């Protein structure tokens, strides 16, 4: 009885197939919805701001949910199917690392499509909040911001999900920790969103028109603290017993 040749990256490929394809399809639906809504609103009032910017609040929650899902559903599923926590976590992180740039790209593409629609309709693509970018046409910066946002949200979701899976009671304390981390990263990337936090971050030299490098460093710093923290939670993760 010899095992067939091992398929080393099977877990990552399974997730990529489902998650990348799934989130791509979801994005199409999302984009259609946002643009249809914008055009709908235009029937009643003048469009003065970017609808995509408003809509882009939503996908970060989706990415956080994906993090929760990977940690609480797929990690145990793969452990139950004969993979170690290390193997599963590594491959799930890899699939996340491939899905997030893709999603960031699609979100950036959204601004470009909006640009085309707004130009044709003669609407101003006005931003309401502070970003790493001043204009939605600064695509590399737009892409960088989404990339960092999704990374932080995804890792935060995985961290909170894993903590609650592992400790259904005490794990709830991971929620404020995750939120604090998100607050810090969001402030670093978009200080206007959390005025009170902006005050805290401001002194250590965060943006408000400030340096992209510092913002990036803060966001990456958050992710690189949360990622090992998540690993600490899952490295010994006991599978939950089932109620029979």
């Amino acid at each position, binding site marked *: 009885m010899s*095992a067939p040749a*091992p398929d080393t990256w099977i877990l990552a490929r399974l997730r990529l197939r489902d998650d990348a394809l799934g989130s791509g399809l979801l994005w199409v639906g999302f984009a259609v919805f946002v643009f249809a809504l914008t055009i709908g609103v235009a029937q009643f009032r003048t469009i003065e701001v970017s609808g995509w910017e408003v809509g882009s609040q939503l996908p970060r929650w989706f990415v956080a949910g994906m993090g929760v899902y990977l940690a609480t559903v797929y990690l145990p599923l*793969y*452990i139950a199917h*004969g993979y170690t926590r290390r*193997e599963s976590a590594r491959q799930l992180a890899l699939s996340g690392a491939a899905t997030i740039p893709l999603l960031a790209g699609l979100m950036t593409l959204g601004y470009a499509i909006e640009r085309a629609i707004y130009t044709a309709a003669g609407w101003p693509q006005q931003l309401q909040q502070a970003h790493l970018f001043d204009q939605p046409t600064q695509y590399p910066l737009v892409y960088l911001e989404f990339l960092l946002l999704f990374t932080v949200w995804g890792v935060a979701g995985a961290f909170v999900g894993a903590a609650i899976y592992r400790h259904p009671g005490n794990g709830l304390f991971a929620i404020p920790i995750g939120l604090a981390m998100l607050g810090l990263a969001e402030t670093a990337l978009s200080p206007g969103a959390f005025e009170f936090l902006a005050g805290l971050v401001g002194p250590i030299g965060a943006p408000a028109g400030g340096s992209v490098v510092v913002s990036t460093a803060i966001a990456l710093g958050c992710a690189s603290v949360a990622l090992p923290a998540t690993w600490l939670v899952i490295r010994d993760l006991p599978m939950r*017993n089932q109620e029979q």
Partner: protein
Amino acid sequence: MTGRLELQDLTVRYGDTVAVDRVTATLEGGRIHGLLGRNGSGKTSLLSAVAAFRRPDGGQVLLDGEPVFENPAAVRRMCLIRGAGDTVVHDWPGDRVRHALDLAARLRPHWDRDHADRLVERFALRRTARLSELSRGQRSALGVVLGLASRAPVTILDESYIGLDAPSRYAFYDELLADHSAHPRTILLATHLIEEVAALFETVTIIDRGRLLLQGSADDLRARGAAVTGPAEAVADLTDGMRVLASKQLGPTRSDTVFGELTTEQITRARRAGLQLDPVPLQDLFVHLTDPATATEQPVSEGSLR
């Protein structure tokens, strides 16, 4: 590649509760083993540690001499099915039987697709059935299919087949035996319903309140119990000093269930005293051994079989 499991001082705790308490036992490769214990005796916790579903809080589990926890080579060779198999846990409405089978086919290195197809048919599972809508019997059947078709060198079923109805259970026993003789491997069945499956086991391991009560050949165990019936005094005289698991008295007649082999001398003495000696079914032995009212704290070595 034998699939020999060694449990060394295995301990599992939940907070202050000790679910598995320093269990040391060996399960030889290529055999069908029974793990018996009452509900809540620690069977599931023990199996979780065996299959590396959780890190032992003390001691370790070795598969062919290698620690199993976080060992890719070891966990790939093991398949623990709890209930309907862990695929069913998230129950998304879109998840169907065929998805559970496909996933196992991709992830289990020894998966036998043809065998899975046959079993699905035998247990009358619908591939398009939603996992969230399976009945208890169907969930059990899915667990059995996932376990048997995994062809994992160490296949562990934690009461998965208990939800099956009688004809399906017999189908399961038949499939298990046929499969085991065609593809010998280590099979461990955990159960608290003994009567029906006892004949399938080569060895029996009984745990009670997290402790190993005894382990040994199922047939040896069958020879170890006896019911001694007759005049109260004569019975008491004969069973004095033996491990009496249960004692019933009706008028002047007393019946003692003893654990341990009767010596030839005792048998002769019993005959002469007009005492009746009867064998005791495995299930009764199990019931008596794990009865909190009579079970005393016995050192493991005393109760265990060679």
